[in-house]
């Protein structure tokens, strides 16, 4: 119940932040969100730095040509502040709620959520392993053909493996009383 309530509050805060066009208020919210994130992270900043950096990069990439083209330089600041605020709010909320509980109103949805996210974790690990193995086998850098052949073969192998794994997970969930509602 707590997780669903927090999710609802988060959605309302998102709408509020997305509606703001005043740089003064956005700066105030940014200060509050930075403070809240610093307290919530307790010094562990390293793993939390990537999403805000990515958001900043995207905002810069989109707003800068427009600001230079039209001379509306404050647009770049407005967009950057809004994007940063929304990203920091999302990071703060996601650290403090359990998504599986928040979306647990349907058993079928939860089942699919568990299965899909378990695959995503597997695929992400496989992707980084694929990059490492290709790098270690090609000291002078892999050719384009090597990359296509290797990724095609490994992709098919893991697609097949993921299918077998999900069959097993689905059976395991069913045997533990997780029926389709």
């Amino acid at each position, binding site marked *: 119940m707590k997780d669903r309530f927090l999710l609802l509050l988060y959605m309302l805060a998102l709408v509020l932040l*997305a509606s703001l066009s005043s740089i003064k208020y956005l700066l105030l919210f940014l200060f509050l969100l930075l403070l809240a994130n610093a307290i919530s992270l307790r010094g562990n900043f390293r793993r939390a730095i990537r*999403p805000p950096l990515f*958001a900043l990069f995207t905002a810069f990439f989109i707003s800068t040509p427009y600001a230079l083209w039209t001379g*509306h330089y404050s647009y770049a600041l407005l967009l950057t502040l809004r994007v940063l605020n929304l990203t920091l709010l999302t990071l703060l909320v996601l650290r403090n709620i359990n998504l599986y509980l928040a979306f647990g109103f349907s058993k079928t949805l939860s089942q699919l959520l568990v299965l899909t996210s378990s695959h995503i974790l597997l695929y992400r690990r496989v992707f980084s392993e694929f990059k490492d193995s290709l790098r270690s086998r090609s000291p002078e850098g892999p050719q384009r053909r090597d990359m296509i052949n290797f990724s095609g073969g490994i992709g098919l192998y893991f697609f097949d493996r993921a299918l077998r794994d*999900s069959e097993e*997970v689905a059976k395991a969930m069913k045997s533990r009383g997780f029926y389709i509602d």
Partner: protein
Amino acid sequence: MHVPDGFIAPQVFLPAYGLVIGLALYGFKRFKENLNERSIPYLATLSAYAFVLSSLSLPLPGGTSVHGMGFAPLSILFGPWTAYLCMCLVFLLQAVLLGHGGITTYSVNALAIGFVGSFCAYGVYSLLTKRKYATFLSGFISTLASALFMSVVLGIHPYLFTDVDGKALYFPYPLSITIPLLLTSHIPVALVEGLLTQAIVSFVRRRGFEG
């Protein structure tokens, strides 16, 4: 094609949320008809495939990004409603796990890629079902249809949301930039999408699953 947080106005994303939720509630009934012990693993695997494919993106200077999507195999094998719901789930996980595509822009992403893409893929496949390249064309055309829908949604922002000085408040580029940019940049993606759709649907059918 994912739009990050901060670029879409609440006047657009809130009604779009209403539409996404309404469609999802109706689609959920159709979705449950497709579910059984045999189909769930395929659904999960193809949803994860869509997740991976749409996570690998390149940003575009005129706005948003370019990436594959992976909804066409889901739509061909399970029908458009199931594909739509799976894509809604994929975007949700992307937004919360990777920060890829935003929560505020989730509804527009879900409509453009999940709804328009899935229904277009199914429609093209159903029309050309006896033809040799139906699966390829389904992936190819539906990818471009999604890109076109997204470019229109983004491109109307500078006409609707500006301040008194004419400065854009949300997405800044007009239709004359978004439509050609998103469509041309998605042609190579649509070709790859078509080929992957063909390969995956054949692979799944070879395993004896017809959907």
